[in-house]
């Protein structure tokens, strides 16, 4: 008995679906049975094992202008075909098309739990938006690269369709997603370290196990020349919270920040505040929480007129082992709140 074919739904824009060019870029999502356009050579490459059961089509402008509605429609239409794999593109350098491919793949993966893959050129702006969530296969920068793209995509679709494990990006040929996954390997870290050092000393090729990240450098704001009429806020990653840690901020790997009102509070005392920060001896922070969140000093500055006012709310999280991604997220959210409250300056304290 022939094995059951895995089912594939393919996403294309109006152009590759041969509906029309820019003049048709406003068409809303529609789904057609079977393979269309680049889907035809893709189907040939998949052979007898898999079948493109439907093609999802949407105009690039419609998608860009109605992204939520378009995504919802794609998910709903795709779900009716019960595919094993969802594939989109290739989008080459087309930005709107790339975003439509990425957003469709991301939503289908998240909402339907179906494996997804798309393909585009390395400078397509959609790549950085979706590479963490979606397998993206590199292509050339224009449709002239279709011939090379199809076999790469079909190989990947086949693996997903047959439920095979996807290996490392360098083995499978997708853009690294930047997801770090733990694995036990055959040799200890010390053995690997000495091997790597010898290769480096001999001028032989070697591969680092962690390529250095590039840090987002935050330019310092211009100095405030006159503090007398300013509102200054306190923000800390040192974990100073009301006694009992009411929002349950984690001692390490914080998943949240919290805000507390300090209007009318002049001093942080151990009967009302504590640190919830792991990773250091909290004795001194708990004895006098002002040591980490200098409220008493700020009140003194407020009283003698050095600053106009201390903002009534402070923000707190725990820095211990908290990921950079979470820290960026908290920082952005806190900054927006402070900006909305017309706070002029912030004192950040850590541990």
């Amino acid at each position: 008995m022939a094995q059951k074919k895995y089912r594939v739904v393919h996403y294309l824009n109006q152009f590759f679906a041969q509906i029309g060019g820019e003049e048709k870029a406003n068409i809303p999502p529609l789904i057609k049975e079977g393979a269309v356009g680049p889907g035809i050579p893709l189907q040939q490459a998949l052979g007898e094992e898999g079948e493109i059961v439907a093609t999802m089509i949407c105009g690039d402008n419609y998608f860009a202008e109605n992204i939520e509605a378009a995504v919802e429609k794609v998910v709903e239409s795709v779900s009716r075909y019960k595919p094993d794999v969802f594939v989109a593109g290739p989008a080459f350098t087309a930005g709107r098309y790339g975003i439509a491919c990425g957003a469709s793949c991301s939503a289908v993966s998240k909402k339907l739990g179906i494996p997804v893959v798309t393909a585009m050129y390395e400078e397509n702006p959609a790549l950085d938006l979706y590479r963490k969530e979606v397998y993206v296969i590199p292509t050339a920068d224009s449709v002239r690269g279709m011939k090379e793209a199809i076999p790469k995509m079909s190989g990947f679709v086949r693996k997903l369709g047959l439920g095979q494990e996807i290996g490392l990006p360098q083995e499978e040929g997708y853009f690294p997603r930047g997801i770090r996954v733990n694995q036990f390997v055959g040799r200890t870290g010390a053995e690997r370290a000495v091997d790597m050092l010898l290769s480096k000393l001999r001028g032989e090729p070697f591969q680092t196990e962690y390529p250095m990240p590039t840090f987002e450098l935050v330019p310092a704001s211009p100095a405030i020349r006159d503090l007398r009429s300013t509102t200054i806020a306190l923000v800390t990653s040192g974990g100073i919270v009301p006694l009992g840690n009411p929002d349950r901020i984690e001692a390490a790997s914080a998943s949240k920040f919290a805000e507390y009102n300090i209007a009318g509070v002049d001093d942080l005392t151990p009967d009302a505040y504590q640190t919830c920060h792991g990773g250091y001896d909290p004795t001194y922070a708990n004895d006098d929480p002002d040591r980490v969140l200098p409220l008493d000093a700020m009140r003194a500055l407020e009283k003698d007129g050095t600053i106009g006012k201390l903002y009534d709310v402070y923000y707190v999280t725990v820095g211990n082992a908290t990921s950079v991604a979470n820290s960026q997220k908290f920082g952005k959210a806190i900054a927006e709140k402070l900006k909305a409250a017309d706070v002029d300056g912030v004192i950040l304290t850590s541990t």
Partner: protein
Amino acid sequence: MRLELGIIKIKDVQFGDETIIEDSTLYVNKKELIALARQDDRLSEADVELARPGEEVRIIPVKDVIEPRVKVSGSGELFPGLVGKMGTVGSGRTNVLRGAAVATVGRIIGPQEGFIDMTGPGAQYSPFSQINNVVLVLHPIDGLDPHAYEEAMRLTGLRAAVYLGKACKDIAPDELEVYELSPVTDTTLPRVVYLSTLLSEGLLHDTWFYGVDAKKLLPTLLHPNEVMDGAIVSGNCVSACDKHTTYHHLNDSVIKELYRRHGKDLNFVGVIVTNLNVTLLDKERSTDYASKLVKLIGADGAIIAEEGFGNPDTDLMMLCKKMEEYGIKTVLITDEYAGQDGASQSLADAVPQADAVISVGNANEVVTLPPMKHIIGDLKSAEVISGGFVGSVTASGGLSVEIQTIMGSTCQLGFGKLTARGY
């Protein structure tokens, strides 16, 4: 400097009337060990339990693990400057109870300790799951400051390791390991130095070197045998995954690997210890000084192992940058904090010169572990140790925690076989 380690293999541990070794079984006189612990009047209560590989036992919260040893000949005593008389260690004969360890348990601060599972999926992450643990559960007297409790626990753990070690002083070892930096005649072999960084941020992030608080050190050069013979002692209460216990220092995996290849692929010229202090001034001074020492001894390459994470990432990167600028090739060993989803960048600092990095795993990875029949210590502390959270203890008594909580899971001495890969 020639060090012989007389390896006495321990396959089981039992309580007995006398602390002795018979047929690879370590018998422990519980009363004597408790009496030894009670010598420190800062401890109110002490208990001893045994945990063997494969048993359904979870030990939590663990502070330090120490391999029992005894000096048979040669200068110095074990753990000089702390429980041993001062004297240079690293030569003569030291007998080792391989396959046994002392583990100290007690909630000093809560967040800064870890756990050991003796079986189940958690056991693959910790080297201490594979050895026979003599567990000292130590309680402080009322009102004892955490730093005093830490010291009492540290010294008691060391004394217990020495006490157990004495039982093997006159036993013929199963194996003899000989460590000697014999002269290398092949001048084409690259000269390699090992840079061991010692956590020294204070507030219970401390390491002791010949009894000296490491935060007061200037980087210094030593023979690898000194490390293997007790010159470095852990005083750390930090995340369990990547603190170097005293056991790790005694069995430093980088030193062992450099020894293994000494004279064949490289010329192992020595160890430099440096500290990991908190201020920029200290970081600049120590990394300047350590890099200069590496240059002075004419090293071509260096392996730099980090301890801890976050703040020490900066020291690691400064060491790397300064050495590479001297023309010394470096390889770094670090773990990662890439978030529970693995999607964040992993380090708190980076320099472009760090092009050769060994990753020993993402400490934020969450694992679900089954309940164990017996808990030594206090299971609830899993919710406050670094990498645990409210709800970490499941209804059935299992754990859902980051591997950060497991003793030695991402040891940056490259002790284990875990790594993280980019997908």
